[in-house]
């Protein structure tokens, strides 16, 4: 076995670990679909098929002391951070044994003490300022930690995303935001969300670091994200990592995704992150057929046990609905100090309360417009183009013109 040179080396065990988690994520996903068809899932079911490399590869960069907050398609991240398939199964089946005891579903759960996972809420964007705060808090306590969360291409359009990124930038918080650009936000294509080829470009407006990575290449995802994470850990500020991938199913089980050109699915199917990684591992002789089969058997066995456990968990007692609105002594709030607290008390903490202003803000002359920047509208956001594309999708495959525009949508767009 000869591993390629990597800036952030991964051992054979780690490489196989990445495979294990990606494969486990997909098998769990498919198990959940079976449960959904058996009517055992309560509510909607969201798939992360096709995005396993993004979720696993990014979360795998985190250390035990680091914090993360998953979004709906980050089951992989939850598994990497130490939750078990049973937790996710019971969440989806609304069982009493689930991490929220049936009070919430899906990936809406966390663990402050051990795994350092913050539960998301449904409202997109709100985790960005929250994880910025976790990062600020950790830094304040003297912990050398990094926090991470994910946001979809659609979620980057929210005000909360902007406020959070901007605060993280202003505070130089040790925070990494992964933009999971899976090309679609429910039924809306990314071009209708924002007229940029690379969403990572938004980082420039915040004055922070950014990266674009092939989100279906787990090793690349890991290397790129690790760079961002370690940079943040060194105190060099937050980063935005755009991982380009594809949502291979509808928004949720109920959605057949007929609005996605079939050619686009084909394009991405040929780039399936798990199949690609299998080839990668084989070509580099990291594993052989036997190892692969062992991992598969292990996953199969584990999932069987996990499912059994989950299915045996009863539905919650109705009275649980009344409990826990307030913390009435059930939690002890304790900060984990890793620095001397005297530094934070007067007289040591005391400062001169005045701003240092070195830039007085003028243009130093330069005529009418000292700087100008007026980009032309990108082709796909011109109203006519959008209308034509919508028509093309609705009559998909009916004529040559339609095919062309579907292909155009599938082709990675070039920046002019």
């Amino acid at each position, binding site marked *: 076995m000869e591993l390629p040179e990597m800036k952030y080396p991964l051992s054979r065990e780690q490489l196989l670990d990445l495979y294990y988690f990606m494969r486990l994520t997909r098998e769990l996903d498919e198990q959940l679909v079976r449960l959904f068809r058996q009517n055992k899932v309560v509510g909607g079911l969201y798939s992360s098929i096709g995005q396993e490399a993004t979720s696993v590869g990014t979360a795998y960069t985190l250390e035990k002391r680091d914090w993360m907050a998953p979004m709906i398609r980050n089951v992989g991240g939850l598994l990497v951070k130490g939750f078990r398939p049973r937790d996710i199964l019971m969440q989806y089946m609304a069982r009493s044994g689930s991490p929220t005891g049936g009070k919430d579903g899906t990936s809406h759960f966390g663990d402050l003490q051990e795994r350092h996972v913050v539960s998301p809420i449904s*409202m997109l964007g709100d985790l960005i300022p929250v*994880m910025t705060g976790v990062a600020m808090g950790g830094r304040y306590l003297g912990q050398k930690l990094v926090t991470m969360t994910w946001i979809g291409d659609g979620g980057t359009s929210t005000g*909360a995303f902007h406020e*959070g990124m901007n605060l993280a930038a202003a505070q130089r918080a040790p925070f990494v935001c992964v933009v999971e650009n899976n090309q679609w936000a429910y039924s809306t294509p990314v071009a209708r969300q924002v007229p940029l080829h690379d969403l990572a470009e938004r980082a420039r407006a915040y004055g922070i670091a950014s990266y674009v990575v092939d989100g279906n290449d787990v090793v690349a995802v890991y290397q790129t994200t690790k760079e961002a994470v370690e940079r943040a850990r060194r105190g060099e500020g937050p980063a935005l990592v755009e991982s380009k991938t594809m949502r291979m199913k509808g928004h949720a089980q109920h959605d057949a995704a007929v609005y996605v050109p079939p050619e686009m699915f084909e394009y991405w199917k040929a780039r399936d992150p798990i199949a690609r990684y299998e080839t990668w591992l084989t070509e580099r002789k990291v594993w052989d057929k036997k190892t692969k089969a062992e991992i598969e058997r292990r996953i199969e066995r584990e999932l069987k046990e996990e499912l059994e456990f989950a299915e045996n968990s009863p539905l919650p007692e109705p009275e649980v609905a009344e409990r*826990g609105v*307030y913390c009435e002594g059930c939690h002890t709030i304790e900060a984990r100090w890793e620095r001397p607290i005297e530094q934070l008390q007067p007289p040591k903490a005391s400062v001169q*309360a005045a701003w240092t202003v070195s830039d007085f803000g003028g243009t130093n002359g330069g005529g009418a417009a000292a700087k100008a920047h007026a980009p032309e509208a990108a082709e796909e956001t011109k109203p006519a183009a959008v209308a034509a594309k919508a028509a093309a999708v609705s009559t998909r495959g009916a004529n040559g013109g339609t095919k062309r525009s579907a292909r155009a949508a599938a082709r990675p767009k070039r920046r002019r």
Partner: protein
Amino acid sequence: MAPVTMIEAIREALDEEMQRDPAVVLIGEDIGVYGGAFKATEGLLAKYGWERVIDTPISETAIIGAAVGMSYQGLRPVAEMQFMDFIACCFNQMVNFVAKSHYRWGGPVPMVVRGPCGGGVHGGPFHSQNPEMWFVHTPGLKVVCPSTAYDAKGLLKSAIRDNNPVLCLEHKFLYRRVKEELPAEDYTVPIGKLAVRRTGRDLTIATYGAMTLHTLEAAEELAMEGIEAEVLDLRTLAPLDREGILESVRRTHKLLVVHEDVKTGGVAGEIAATVNEQAFEELDGPVLRVTSLDAPVPFSPPLEEHFLPQVADVTRAARELARY
């Protein structure tokens, strides 16, 4: 001890809590170098440094979000809204993230959101609102609204030490109008307990915030007419001291609720329903309300005066109730 104003009492509470516990940090707009729009945090940056008094961009959602995040680290952040009206900008964080965190997944949020609310200072529609009921209606939040310097300090200290998110609504009309001597030693005022400001046998008037002043003035006038009103200062709206209200009503058999919030959906309706359900037999008359109009808070002085409850409105309603 010299008497201190409410705003000074608030600053003392912050200062003493920061001194007591390094987990207490402040976050908000213009709270550091400038000391806050109303100077509640004046001098605290110089004393505690940049890490504990954090000036932010104008981003209410990020302020609350960051405070939640810090509280997950075991810190006890106190976030300032420059004016309470702006809490609408972070409504989602408040009602969906903050309020539901403990219930949904056991993530306690020991944070405080404080700032000036209320009218009577010609602030217009966006600097005068009373947003308490948006949050009283949201299980998981606690809401306090002091009317005295003593309570402002004691309730803020309780709020900081509470393991739950607490919203401290400080009425800006009172910031520099009420003054009193405060104990030299550390004290707190319990959240969820009303205070009887005046005893009386003829009727109960429940109120809170700046309206406590108006109501006490009205009670003096009523006393001269031989009507003895018991005045309850609710102090906390969530959780509401229902037992305290019922106890008084069982003695006076009549209840008037006065608040500066608008009528529809104001806490008076909730109190009336509670008394109806639990003490109907005790009542000798209808539960009456004196509130602001169901309108935005208008700017021009005669409009605002017409909009807000006045002392005369309270005495008129009390006389009407006393006749039953």
